[in-house]
């Protein structure tokens, strides 16, 4: 695989990570923020799998990414349930709109 080395994959991981962080920082829609989280997790996953191929991390990296995928699914399930609950109570999903807790 000429020309493609670990750094190239890490670059993709970094782009995913940065996009995720920016997404989390700017989106006010709660589900939008969660999508940012998914991007960040995927950035880490790309790193893990790339490391598993190119460094002595070996299969540990792939194992880790498998667990991350599963844990992300669990987290999304709870987050969605909470978001629906929030929507039922507030009729909005805007994170900033919830303003009863402040101080």
């Amino acid at each position, binding site marked *: *695989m*000429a*020309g493609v*080395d670990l*750094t*190239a*994959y*890490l*670059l*993709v991981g*970094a*782009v*995913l990570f*940065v*996009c*995720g*962080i*920016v*997404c989390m*920082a*700017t*989106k006010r829609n709660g*589900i*939008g923020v*969660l*999508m*940012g989280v*998914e*991007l960040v997790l*995927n950035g880490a996953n*790309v790193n893990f*799998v790339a490391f*598993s*191929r190119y*460094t*002595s*991390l*070996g*299969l540990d990296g*792939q*194992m880790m*990414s*498998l*667990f991350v*995928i*599963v*844990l992300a*699914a*669990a*987290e*999304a*399930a*709870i987050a*969605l*349930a909470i978001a*629906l*609950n929030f*929507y039922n109570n507030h009729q*909005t*999903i805007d994170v900033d709109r919830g303003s009863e807790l402040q101080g």
Partner: protein
Amino acid sequence: MNGAALFWFFAAVTCAGAVAVVVSQNVVRMAVWLIVALGGAAGLFFQLSADFVGATQLLIYVGGTIVLLIFGVMLTASGPYLRIKTSPGEGFLAAGVGLLFVLVLMSTVLTIDWNAGRLKLAGLGKVSADAYETALHKEGLSESDRTLLEQAYQPSAKADHAAEPAPKSGPAVAENPEAADSHGSAPKPGDVHSVPAALAYELNPGRRLTSAEAARLAALFGQEKAVVASAMPAQGDTIRPLGLALAGLRPDRDLNKVHAKAATTPGYLLPFEIVSVHLLVVLIGAAYLARTKRRRVEAS
């Protein structure tokens, strides 16, 4: 060549999807771009010959988690097409934050010479003069190998490490299981300190090594295995290795070493089982939150 082309294709898809998620103003479109980004990442996993992870990504992430997210969007959309307006100020702020992160990552992760790191972990970050000379004057050494050796290593400039307590540096190298077990012409732990500091050779930080060069150097010092420790099958087929790794057997490492150090080779049976308990708890919690409160019979 094909690999490179496919890599750039998938990388472009992934990055474009990720950027589009950020730029997009409509939540459902964000979800679509997220699918594109994650699908591209799955392609990258296949490229990295992690086919099981790639398929899992498709099945659970793209086919499950994202569908769940879209589901959530649809259930919570107040208007027909929910738009999130970002003010220009916020946009600039976000761009600034993003740029800052990119710069940080550029100055750290992306500038590392990973191949030199692998050599260092294999105990080849600093080699004794003896070992270096032996490698350099090996019979039948090709011209390119010689140039590589000369460029990759430089005489150790720092003299102060001789003052460092000697027994400490030994275990640090010997700790590395790969390095410790190869008794080839590798530098023995004591070597570094048995010679005067100036006569040791260390990796030249100015010369970035490619993967092939790192492997070649390791081979010249008789530690090929340590650097190419990850013997992932080139064509994927990771299901059996992964299954074995679950029990703590590591086909990507030397099988004979596994048993002797069973305690230090992590198997993933426990996380696998405990995650199932976690999923059960999470499902019960999510079901509780999502259903309407049951009213007691007496109350009505």
